[in-house]
């Protein structure tokens, strides 16, 4: 797997996107953040299809932050496709969503999510969650920049 410092954020809500980007920055995570607005766009990016034809698909993101409720192709389907493709099957995926439904948590883990973080209303908690994400997925994988 080629080394990359990109974080792929799959999020359709611009507010959540802005807040997530800000939270990551606040936690001194300076990785490049690529945003996909729906499931289709995310899969096109990862597999170099559609508008991303010609992208070097061996350049995998460091981590994928995946919202579950997405237009076109929903988050669980995206996760399933990531895990079935040999290219991306070991890619770390963190499910980052509003849902606290037990069914979503169980399905996410059974589809191979590495972590499940619920977006809290209290943004301080969200920062905390982002902080833990940064520590775990970026520092532990030794590609952290700007820490």
């Amino acid at each position: 797997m080629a080394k990359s410092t990109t974080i792929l954020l799959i999020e359709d809500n611009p507010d959540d996107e802005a807040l997530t980007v800000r939270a990551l920055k606040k936690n001194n995570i300076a990785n490049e953040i690529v945003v996909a607005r729906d499931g289709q766009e995310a899969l096109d990016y990862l597999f170099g299809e559609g508008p991303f034809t010609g992208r070097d698909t061996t350049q995998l993101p460091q981590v994928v932050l995946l919202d579950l409720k997405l237009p076109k192709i929903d988050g669980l389907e995206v996760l399933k496709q990531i895990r079935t493709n040999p290219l991306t099957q070991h890619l770390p995926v963190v499910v980052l969503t509003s849902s606290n439904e037990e069914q979503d948590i169980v399905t996410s883990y059974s589809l191979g999510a590495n972590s499940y973080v619920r977006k809290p209303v209290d943004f301080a908690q969200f920062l905390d969650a982002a902080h833990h994400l940064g520590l775990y997925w970026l520092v532990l994988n030794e590609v952290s920049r700007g820490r």
Partner: protein
Amino acid sequence: MWRLRSTLPWLLLTIILLLLLLSAVLFVRYQWQQEFQIKQRSSERELQLLASLIRNDLQTGNYQHVDKLIDDWGSNNIDIRKMQLTAANGYQFNKFERPASTSDPIASTAIINYGYRGEARLELIKDFIGVQVRHRYLSWQIGIMYTVVASLLTALTCALIRYQKKSAALLRQVERRLLAEAELQSHNDSLEEAVASRTAQLASINSELEAFSYSVSHDLRAPLRAIDGFSMALLEDCSQALDQTCRDYLNRVRNGAQKMGHLIDDLLQLSRVTRSELQLKETNLSLVAETVIKELRQSDPVRTINISITPNLWVRGDPTLLEILLSNLLGNAWKFTRQRPDATIELGTLIKDNKACFFIRDNGVGFDMKYSAKLFTAFQRLHSIEQFEGTGIGLATVQRVIRKHGCSIWVDASIDAGATFYFTLPSSDTRQAM
């Protein structure tokens, strides 16, 4: 129809008995006639024999012998009633006579010619006593036989009718039962259909509810997150440009958003409790309580509270729901003892109103029991938000958990003397709950 069917055997029996009687009478009469004819013939022969004997004596002129013969013959044959020989010239020979019998006699007469133009008339009247006795005897025999046969036939008919009635009753009963069974079956079928359609309806409502709470969980929280998040961003990133009042406003915005977040979470928990399927397991309630207390201590480490949990309280319940139950009840106890320096929370069992039940007791602020009816209704609060925070959904959730287990919960409290919540839960199969 039924009357005809019940009277028909009796009618038949009567006809048969009448026919039998008729044939018996005819048989007796026929016998009588036969015997009568035989007797008549034999009497005729006797007369001829007697006549030939008398003729011999008359031809030889032995008249004395004739008289003697009449006497001897008459006394030796007991069925002779009268015997009389009269000559043509009117001369009366000896005459034999017996006292009259009741029966009809048979009279026969023979003309005896003897010698030259001699003529005598022999008259013989024979009694029929033997035939009559035999006939009477036969009549009695036939009568008795007839009576016996008739009684047997009657008894048989009675038995047959009773048997038929009984079997008809049995048949009717069986018919009724079969009919009832068929009815029951069709009723069951329609019931099953109704249940199936209701189940389908319920399932569709449930899945709608699921979709609803899913979108509530997602969509309602997203704008709240934006409100809270950007308020915080303003506070952090533009704090120089904001004065104290503005910062206070932003903090109020954040508080409001967070409260609504809690409200949504609590409502979702309430709805999850309602629609989740009960999965009963042997559960140690004491351990669940200790976990909840541990979490409470972590979130509020400055408090010192005496906790007393009776160990090994085993119940048969849904562990997830039991945790929701205890986190609400113990959370309340934790919250409402806040002003007590010697706060105490207790979990144990006791017998109340002849029922083994669990209790959670605190020495907090308590409440007036006249409001207790409102307590388990959603959005009902007995304290102001300034005094104690909360959404008013916790105890509604608690009651749903208890009701889902088919059990009950009640409360005893008074102002400033704490509150005790009593509740029952399905007892553990394998372990002693006490």
